[in-house]
């Protein structure tokens, strides 16, 4: 199945892009996707362990199972205000 992945701030710099469509295995969890991404781009680990994740624009935990068409983002430390 296919998800839409968004990159922001320092993660966008590391990835060199702001978004991509990506194939993930059926039943894959948020934490599985993060592991896969950090294998490809170890630079993502510079903010430490798995950052907060959002699926379809809502914060969610590492155990959330991804679904086809999900919009997924890992969020570097936020700094609004």
């Amino acid at each position, binding site marked *: 199945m296919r998800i839409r992945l968004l990159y922001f*701030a320092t993660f966008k710099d590391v990835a060199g892009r702001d978004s991509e469509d990506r194939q993930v295995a059926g039943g894959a969890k948020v934490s599985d996707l993060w592991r896969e991404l950090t294998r490809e781009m170890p630079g993502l680990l510079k903010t430490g362990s798995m950052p907060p994740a*959002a699926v379809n*624009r*809502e914060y969610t935990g590492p155990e959330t199972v991804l679904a086809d068409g999900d919009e997924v983002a890992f969020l570097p430390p936020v700094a*609004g*205000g």
Partner: protein
Amino acid sequence: MYLTDAPIDSAALFAAARPSDGGVCTFLGVVRNHHMGRPTERIAYEAYGPMAEAEIGKILDGLAREWPDAQVQVRHRVGVLEIGDVAVAIVASAPHRAEAFVACRAAIDRIKATVPIWKREFHPDGTSDWVDPTAGSPPG
């Protein structure tokens, strides 16, 4: 509706106070010329727009439940801001001042904690970096 790439019109936010409101507490977050001991020249704000809008909406819903007499408004800039520019404006009005103060403070604290907005600081020496409030910086 909470994010804008145009200068924030604070006066318009003030104008929304109701005739029953006796206290209006405002917080303006302003781009300052220093951060963690280093000089700052300007700041670029980036947001995960749709999620940021939704998160601010949830924060306002929570404030309305906790302080039902307070009315809170929020505007947050995105894009490149210069020193002195208003990055965020919170206006909390209530019949009495205690509620206005506490709702305003809670609003800015929660916005800083969870709304997906990032800022890149540009220094006079040409370097820049993303601000990481979890890295031990004082609260802004």
